[in-house]
């Protein structure tokens, strides 16, 4: 008897193709990295970092407190005053080139650890996160001795000591986005990685040692939200850079208000992804998939709101469903995996809450039928139809593989809906008409717009938001501005 099935996966399954993890050895526990040396937290406390795909503990990590933050800021200040600010741009740049090279050399190890610690598919860690992290250092290395050309008519000086807080969705890449421009411009750094994904930042600290980076130029304090608060509130900082939720970003701005410390914020988003009837629909469907299911939807610039022209709505939704059914959800270390594990239990619960909220609001939920592992945190690729502009699943950032689909008739209606959220980080448009592309890309109030593509990143390309998605840019010439003092 011939087995019939509507899904491709069940007829043509893929054999497992796991990436090996035997070419490196992680330590049982990691200290803080302060003044060029690893050391335990003053309190002696540690926390566990787990693999969200199997809930196993990978390593223990020092839980930094106020005293540790203070030590780190002082180390950064000393390095700034005695070494880094005095060093020529050319020499600073050479350190960054070294770091870029070592990231490339250790790329496979970094990719595997990234996928183990954060749950993202190895294909993405290997092909996106790690190569882009290296590219960010390579790009910024070259700026270090050319900053005068970035700011015509001005003389350029570093800002001082920067406190930087990064999220868990692109752990090493966010290290690069924050640290590379800061160091290139002559600042020193205290970085706090997310508590669920500290490992590649710790490996980065090793890389700084291997590169011979002067002690105290880069300091790492691991911990949770309270560690981040201790860093933000430390009076010794000249600059704070934060990537994370809009809620926390606002709280940081408030707590820094009295001090006037420089601040840049890269916050949440709820990007509209607009599909016109004259788009190449098959390509657009690939774009939608990449827009919302890349990195489990843990992407601040994710195309989480699909706006599709009414005349092609049925076709797009049908093709989207068929394509979604081919997505493989499972072991992040398997090279066939399209969608990995949700980063943490807390985030998984949050996404499930939104799935419930969406249904309670009256929207219609679609989820793929794929199987998911028993252990670990998983959400099947999902979308909602029959949603209204006022629904919470349209207005609020879910940060998971959940798409809200709306339709529109005219270009102006699409723009009206696209801009009708407090966010303004990114947006996308698919059409084969050149003039329409420019009209729409101009009309979307957001900092990054993808036309006939989505979720592309590059160190030369400025990234950052309008409105409540934050302020300041990262990458490109514009990304240097937050890290220099002009006079």
């Amino acid at each position, binding site marked *: 008897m011939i087995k019939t099935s509507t899904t491709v996966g069940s007829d043509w399954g893929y054999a497992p193709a796991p990436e090996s993890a035997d070419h490196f050895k992680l330590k049982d526990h990691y200290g803080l990295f302060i003044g060029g040396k690893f050391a335990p937290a003053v309190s002696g406390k540690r926390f566990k970092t787990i693999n969200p795909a199997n809930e196993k503990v990978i390593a223990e990590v020092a839980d930094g407190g106020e005293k540790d933050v203070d030590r780190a800021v002082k180390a950064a200040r000393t390095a700034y005053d005695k070494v880094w600010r005095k060093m020529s741009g050319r020499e600073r740049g050479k350190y960054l080139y070294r770091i870029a090279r070592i990231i490339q050399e250790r790329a496979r190890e970094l990719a595997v650890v990234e996928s183990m610690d954060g749950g993202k598919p190895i294909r993405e860690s290997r092909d996106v996160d790690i190569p882009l992290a290296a590219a960010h250092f390579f790009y910024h290395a070259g700026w270090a001795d050319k900053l005068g050309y970035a700011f015509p008519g001005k003389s350029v000086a570093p800002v001082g000591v920067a406190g930087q807080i990064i999220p868990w969705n692109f752990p090493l890449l966010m290290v690069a986005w924050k640290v590379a421009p800061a160091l290139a411009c002559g600042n020193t750094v205290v970085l706090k990685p997310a508590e669920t994904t500290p490992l590649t930042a710790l490996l980065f600290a090793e890389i700084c040692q291997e590169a011979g980076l002067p002690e105290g130029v880069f300091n790492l304090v691991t911990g949770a939200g309270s560690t981040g608060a201790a860093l933000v509130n430390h009076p010794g900082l000249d600059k704070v850079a934060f990537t994370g939720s809009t809620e926390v970003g606002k709280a940081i701005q408030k707590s820094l208000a009295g001090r006037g410390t420089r601040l840049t914020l890269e916050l949440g988003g709820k990007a509209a992804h607009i599909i016109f009837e004259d788009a190449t629909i098959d390509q657009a469907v690939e774009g939608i998939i990449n827009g919302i299911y890349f990195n489990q939807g843990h992407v601040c610039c994710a195309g989480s709101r699909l706006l599709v022209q009414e005349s092609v709505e049925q076709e797009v939704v049908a093709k989207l469903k068929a394509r979604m059914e081919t997505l493989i959800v499972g072991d992040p270390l398997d090279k066939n995996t399209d969608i990995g594990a949700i980063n943490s239990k807390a985030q998984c619960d949050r996404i499930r809450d939104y799935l419930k909220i969406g249904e309670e609001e009256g929207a219609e939920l679609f989820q793929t039928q794929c199987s998911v592992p028993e252990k670990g945190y998983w959400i099947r690729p999902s979308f909602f139809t029959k949603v209204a502009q006022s629904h919470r699943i349209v207005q609020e950032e879910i940060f998971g593989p959940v798409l809200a689909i709306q339709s529109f008739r005219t270009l102006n209606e699409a723009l009206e809906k696209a801009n009708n959220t407090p966010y303004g980080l990114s947006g996308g448009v698919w059409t084969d008409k050149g003039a329409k592309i420019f009209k729409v890309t101009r009309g979307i109030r957001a900092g990054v717009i993808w036309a006939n593509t989505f979720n*592309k990143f*590059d160190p030369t*390309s400025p990234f950052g938001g*309008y409105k409540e998605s934050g302020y300041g840019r990262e990458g490109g010439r514009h990304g240097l501005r937050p890290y220099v003092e002009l006079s």
Partner: protein
Amino acid sequence: MSRNGTSGNNGRLDVRKTYKMLIGGAFVRSESGRALDVMAPGGKWLGHVCRASRKDFRNAVVVARKAASGWAGATAYLKGQILYRAAEMLEGRASGFREVLQSIGLSPAAAKAEVAQAIDLLVYYAGWSDKYLQVFGAVNPVATPHFNFSVTEPMGVVAYVAGEKRPLLDLVAGIAPIVVGGNAVITLSTGRAAVAAMELGEVLETSDFPPGVINLLCGLREELVGQMASHMDVNALVIQGGEVKEHGAVRESCALNLKRFFLRDQSGKEDEDPYRILDTVEIKTTWHPVGG
């Protein structure tokens, strides 16, 4: 300002001017009906100006928001010509402005210098209109087959609190970079500077700025600055002068909608600075594939 005289030359009674604010292209009094006394440095009473209410500010935001998209869409050439037109209008009324500035306490030399600088500053920023994008925009050489470029776009509605030190110049130095960046602006002038501001309204209103692009209020700083910082439909707040304590409170309120906040120095050394234009514009980066 010759409002204090009960009789002018030859026994003729002066016709006094009632100073009004400029909101949405109309000269209006405060909706609150309140007024403030303006005093000369020696303590002599000079006249009244409006005391704008928080409601006046909110009204101004509504008209500024309406005007913002049209102004943002105006060509750089047109925006430049309108700023230049403002310089022409101010030049034509230079002697009147010198008198006004002297009446509020500036020396003749200082008044003359300030008016001249204000005119030249308008010309300076008029010239930036079709150039700052070329200086601050970029085509970015990404490592994938995409055409990638970054342009400036106006933020939208910007509020500006002017200092009092240079009654005319502080206001012009604030407005010019904001509007040349394609934003609509609502300004607040206080104390003696309010008189110069209300005079400037008459210049700007005859310079072809679309109604609502520039809105000039006057009133009490401590009464209005909090509303300006907390208003949810204002994109940026630029402040000159004020106390450290006020700046802290304002920054805190700006967090409500992540309003961009900038503190302007009053030395005058940075009046001519294209990076001020950059403060109140956003950078938008667009990707497009290159292929068949």
